[in-house]
């Protein structure tokens, strides 16, 4: 069986003990979305304030296990200040990280005709600290704990854009 140390990496525990961006934002101007994990009762509330298509401010609340709380904390630190297009890219990269399927080959040559912006979107986004959550995949029941905040953020962004 995989080691618990793969799941509970130090950086994850740090985000769990000292969550970044926990709190609330006034709605409006911010929007608020709630996510539930019906299996275990984890609840997450995401607040985002969009400035055009830039995530100006993000906060989260709710309750959950170390993985769900750390994931929300890391996600919020990473996406703050990014554009929604960059977020979509990060979201895709995160879902790949969380998928049990092998990752697609990394050395896909970029066609020279691509313009720069598009090329940027198509290179896998750098997840940084979030990569520490990779070990979660070895504990399949916990994957939903890690992905809950990402689903909820997507919802919040959709809400803000409609």
């Amino acid at each position, binding site marked *: 069986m995989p080691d618990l140390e793969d799941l509970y990496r130090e950086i994850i525990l740090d985000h769990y003990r000292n969550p970044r961006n926990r709190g609330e934002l006034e709605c409006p101007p911010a929007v608020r979305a709630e996510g539930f994990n019906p299996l275990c*009762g*984890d609840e997450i509330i995401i607040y985002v304030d969009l400035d055009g298509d830039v995530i100006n401010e993000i906060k989260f609340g709710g309750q959950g296990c170390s993985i769900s709380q750390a994931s929300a904390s890391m996600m919020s630190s990473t996406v703050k200040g990014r554009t929604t297009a960059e977020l979509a890219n990060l979201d895709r990269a995160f879902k790949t990280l969380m998928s049990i399927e092998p990752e697609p080959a990394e050395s896909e040559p970029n066609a020279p005709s691509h313009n720069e912006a598009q090329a940027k979107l198509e290179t896998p986004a750098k997840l940084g600290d979030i990569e520490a959550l990779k070990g979660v995949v070895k504990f399949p029941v*916990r994957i939903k704990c890690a992905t809950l905040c990402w689903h909820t953020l997507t919802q919040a962004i959709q809400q803000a854009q409609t």
Partner: protein
Amino acid sequence: MALNTASIRADFPILCRRVHGKPMVYLDSAATSHKPRPVIDAVTHYYEQINSNVHRGSYQLAVESTDALEEARKKVANFIGAGSDAEVVFAKNATEAINLVARTWGCANLSPGDPVVITELEHHANIVPWHMLAQENGINLRWIPIDTNGHLDLTNLDRLLDGAKLLSVAAVSNVLGTINPVAQLTEAAHDAGALMLVDASQHTPHLPTDVQEMGADFVAFTGHKMCGPTGIGVLWAKMELLEAIPPFLGGGEMILNVTKEGFSTADVPWKFEAGTPPIAEAVGLGAAVDYLTGLGMKQVRSHELSLVSYALNTLKERYGNHITIHGPQEPAERGGVLSFDYKGIHPHDVAQVLDRAGVCVRAGHHCAKPLMRVLGCGATSRASLYLYNNESDIDALADALADADAFFV
């Protein structure tokens, strides 16, 4: 006579399993119990020697199969002190049994605004069917609160029952372990002119159950928590009531006659058992009831009582204020369910760490979200005991809890 746990454990093949290279310590019997050899054998024997559809068959196997089903009904009836075998209706599980009452008796007898009273410690199985009726028929759901010890707070019972049509209560809480005063509640319900439904899912496996003593009108429970197979549950109700209420699902087995114009229903209990029943599962439940009766339900209860006392003492001695055990602190007032908070560590993380030590506990809301809200938490860790558990299982739990400190403290 005390239970001989060593010989009981030998009856449960799964208890030999190892998980993650460690002996398995199973502390999740409130979710489902393991099955003893006689139950597994009864199901196998049914399929190997008897298997055929019930009722209407004239050949030997079909006769034996029908007999096996009805024999199981008789065993269950005896086990719960039913007035007659026909008062035992087989359902899929306790959830279906409660839904049966809501859909048949409820739809026929409840009008918009009629109060139905439940409690804050109910399992979703005894909440959602009433929420559904509230949405569809406009019934009015009232809640008996719990006090800080996890007992029902009956201070305003009379007011809550005023005008009520039904009181529906779990005999034993699957989260707090609280043993509720069912007979007293039934009396209060009847005095107020309401019927009484008891969700006995956590009662029949662990305590002697006598539906006459409970005095209730409906009693629902589930087979898989009492050493029986999954897929079989029971609704017991008084004969007059079963005769008076409309059928549940329609189809084969539940009819007397069908014409182009309509149908007439079979007698109770078959009127409520549409389609091919879970025959092997019923046979397995019959064997489970025999097994429990052989041990003696009083002995099962006293075994769990001493184990709960041992658990409460051990955990408090080891961890003092670092552990909070929800529900009644007095062992005599509770079943073998221990929901706890350890050092504020999230239950999923606790359960994950315990799993590495081979200790199986459940983390989550235990299908009692309204209760979680009352307790002020989203989830609890829950260790639950049964007749095959012993003190070394408790010791293993206590030892493994300390492992969580390395990560979370």
